[in-house]
């Protein structure tokens, strides 16, 4: 159940592949859910040039370990991988990777969702963006939706 802070760029999909192969549990899990958050070139209507991600060494790792422990306790996840960039980040860099392996799709997806939401709202990271006229702290993470969706109509045929 590795949790790692990465000061250098990483390729999230390659990391999932590499870690999955190291699990050696081929055939033992039926469901994998992956969430990847990437550095965008815009935020709050403004063009972003790059970003610096500050964290609280010690607490950040501890908090992420605790989220993963909670997720594993709540859903039947066989394994979880969390990677998060720190330091200077360029456009299109992968910032965060959450991956969960389970025998069951609901467990894999809910565990992934729980971890990214907790991370976004509680893990001690802070983004400072470079925009045209200087730098600015990102004030607050958003709800993660562009619009509030209506629940899908499960009864539709």
């Amino acid at each position: 159940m590795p949790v790692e802070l990465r000061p250098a760029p990483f390729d999230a999909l390659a990391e999932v592949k590499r870690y999955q192969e190291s699990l050696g549990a081929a055939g033992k899990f039926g469901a994998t859910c992956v969430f990847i958050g990437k550095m965008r070139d815009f935020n709050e209507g403004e063009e972003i040039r790059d970003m610096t991600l500050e964290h609280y060494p010690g607490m950040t790792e501890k908090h992420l370990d605790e989220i993963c422990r909670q997720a594993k306790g709540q859903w039947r996840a066989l394994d979880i991988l969390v990677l998060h960039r720190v330091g200077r980040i360029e456009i299109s860099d992968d910032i965060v990777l959450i991956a969960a392996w389970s025998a069951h799709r609901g467990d894999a997806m809910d565990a992934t969702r729980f971890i990214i939401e907790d991370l976004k709202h509680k893990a001690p990271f802070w983004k400072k963006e470079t925009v045209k006229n200087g730098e600015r702290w990102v004030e607050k993470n958003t709800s993660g939706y562009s619009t509030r969706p209506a629940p899908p109509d499960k009864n539709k045929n």
Partner: protein
Amino acid sequence: MSIKVKFFARMREELGRAEDAMEHAAGLKVSDVWREMSGGREMPDSLLVAINMEHVKGDPELKDGDEVAFFPPVTGG
């Protein structure tokens, strides 16, 4: 007793340092540390506080050796 204090992100910039320390008699609360460290500034509503790397709410009392951290809303992920 002695307390270690840390500041992150905007708080670090506004208070001009990443860490500090203070000595005090027993009975010190988080709000006392903030007042002392910030030169009497009002505590921002959105300010987050951790003691020994755990989030805390309210205004708990500190004990000798505690590490108190002040920081703005988190924006990772």
